[in-house]
């Protein structure tokens, strides 16, 4: 198989630091050697081997932008580049990084107390403990504020009841960050595997994100000690801060998926002979490739500037919203276009395009295209349209 070629039409590489380039290249070569030869197999079997998490932990990818408990303290831009390289292989990998780092370690780091940080963060960084994040519920997706999960405080414990859905890594997780209402206010709780009344059955039958483990989290009179509440946050700010960070990763991850589809399309267009010449000779195919290059380049500039804004602490959640909406949308269109260029071959697992195409349908959730538009609409007009 020909070597993967990423896109850098506008020489954006010149703006990355040497460490950022080294990190990106490290993850790219790891993906190339350890993941690409097996990813179609994982996808068709619907598995995500636990060793992948260990290897990612050994490299120090989890929570790499945090600066405590042994985390590397890298830039957000470096984190973005890691997401890009992981998602170039499969969205399942980027999702695993997001869930462990941004949705499990980050809330403990930002909102947890000293004991919680010491207990969980070092092992999570190393991939020895796997975390997951429970916000979405079967009846509350885009409106998490109306969640039904409730916690009651007793003398020596909290008792939780509720169901969470679409939880990446839930079934294999050692701990779950659960958002639920305590006396009407949204609070974060740490549930550990083995807590009585807690179960995490895997959701089966997905046509997308097949190499990722997706689960339900069920809490039935789940009783946990009092020191498992995240003490330093109340309300939607908690989960939204984490989601914003995860969406930032998707801004970059979707670029990786798009670049993989573009790369496959260019190679296919140059080698597939039809009517006696490569299909890349035809204007309609060239038009598609040019559009892909254009959109990827725009998406890269957007991701780069967003990354640097985040490195300076100058980003807003609306900026992330725009980036996530744009880059996922362009990646979805590029994946579909790539399938088209590949003709019937595009549906085969010999090529990565249909896998990415299907995955991106899931990536487009976690803040849908429409919801992101409404967030921007609110920012523009000052009027909230989704209440």
């Amino acid at each position: 198989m020909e070597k993967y070629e990423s896109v850098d039409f506008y020489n954006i590489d010149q703006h990355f630091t040497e460490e950022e380039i080294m990190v990106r290249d490290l993850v790219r070569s790891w993906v190339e050697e350890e993941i690409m030869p097996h990813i179609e197999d994982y996808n068709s079997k619907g598995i995500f081997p636990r060793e992948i998490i260990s290897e990612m932990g050994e490299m120090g990818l989890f929570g790499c932008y945090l600066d405590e408990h042994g985390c590397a303290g890298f830039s957000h831009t470096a984190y973005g580049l890691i997401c890009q390289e992981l998602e170039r292989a499969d969205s399942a990998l980027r999702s695993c990084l997001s869930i462990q780092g941004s949705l499990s370690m980050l809330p403990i780091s930002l909102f947890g107390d000293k004991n919680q940080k010491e207990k969980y963060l070092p092992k999570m960084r190393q991939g020895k403990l796997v975390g997951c994040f429970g916000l979405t519920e079967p009846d509350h997706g885009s409106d998490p504020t109306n969640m039904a999960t409730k916690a009651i405080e007793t003398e020596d414990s909290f008792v939780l009841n509720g169901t969470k859905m679409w939880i990446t890594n839930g079934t294999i997780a050692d701990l779950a960050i659960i958002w639920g209402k305590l006396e009407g206010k949204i609070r974060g709780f740490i549930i550990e595997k083995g807590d009585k009344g807690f179960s995490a059955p895997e959701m089966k039958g997905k046509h997308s994100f097949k190499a990722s483990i997706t689960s339900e989290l069920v809490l039935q009179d789940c009783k946990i000690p009092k020191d498992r509440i995240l003490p330093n946050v109340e309300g939607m700010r908690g989960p939204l801060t984490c989601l914003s960070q995860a969406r930032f990763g998707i801004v970059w991850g979707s670029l990786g998926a798009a670049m993989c589809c573009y790369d496959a399309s260019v190679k296919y267009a140059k080698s597939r002979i039809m009517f006696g010449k490569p299909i890349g000779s035809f204007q309609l195919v060239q038009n598609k490739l040019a559009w892909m290059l254009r959109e990827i380049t725009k998406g890269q500039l957007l991701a780069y500037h967003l990354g640097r804004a985040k490195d300076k602490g100058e980003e807003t959640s609306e900026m992330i919203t725009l980036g996530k909406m744009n880059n996922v949308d362009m990646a979805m269109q590029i994946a579909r276009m790539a399938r088209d260029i590949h003709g019937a071959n595009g549906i085969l697992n010999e090529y990565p395009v249909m896998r990415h195409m299907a995955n991106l349908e899931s990536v487009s959730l976690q803040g849908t295209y429409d919801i992101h538009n409404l967030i921007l609409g609110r920012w523009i007009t000052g009027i909230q349209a989704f209440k």
Partner: protein
Amino acid sequence: MNIVVLVKMVPDTESRLEIVDGKVNESGFKYMVNPYDEFAVEQAVQFKEANGGKVTILSLFSNDGSIDTDLRKMMAIGADEAIVLRQDNYRGDKPSANATVLSNAIKEMEADLIIGGVQGIDYYQSATGPMIAHMLGIPHISGVTNLELNDGKFTAKRQVEGGLQIIECSNPLLVTCQKDMTKVRFPALKDIMMSKRKPFESRTVEPVESNDVETAECSLPPARGGGMIIEGESSEDKVDKLIEKLKTEAKVI
């Protein structure tokens, strides 16, 4: 244990190869660490981790700074420092000249072990390593598939036709590594950060005279001719025609 690792920067395998007037056009080349040399870096770092000591990357190249990041990756794997000898008009196909410059630098380094890849994937000459050993007056073992160090003594294994050769040697010595001698690790992000703080020295060196052979002319393999589909009434008929063509046209049977 003081280990010097010879690292050659070679054209990236994705670089476009173009011949102009019988010469390779190198203007658009990107460079990468010679893959065989990566095995040497990993092996050196493993020795250091087990026995202590220092691992120095030594590379001879032009003044092109685009290679620095790739060399720094070798320090992320665990090498302690890098010395790059910068030479005007450096060429990768002059093993004698390059061995002279490299061995002069090594003389001052008090190396116990000098280790590199068995060959560069640019010109595949397999010459620089043994030449350096000769110039330093130390033994060398080339194309090693496994290298162990016990009580200051090296045991090297080499694949030879139909068998395995085992060589024992004390230091100083020079070893060149065969493919897959050891699995090169993926460094951790922390190591990448640390690599920025490790010494990275560029030294200017003068070109030297040598009796290296000169390349007269380069050419690309001839383009493949078009295929041919043999028509025929039946399979037998087609096979007959194929045999005829193999005899009379291809002249291979």
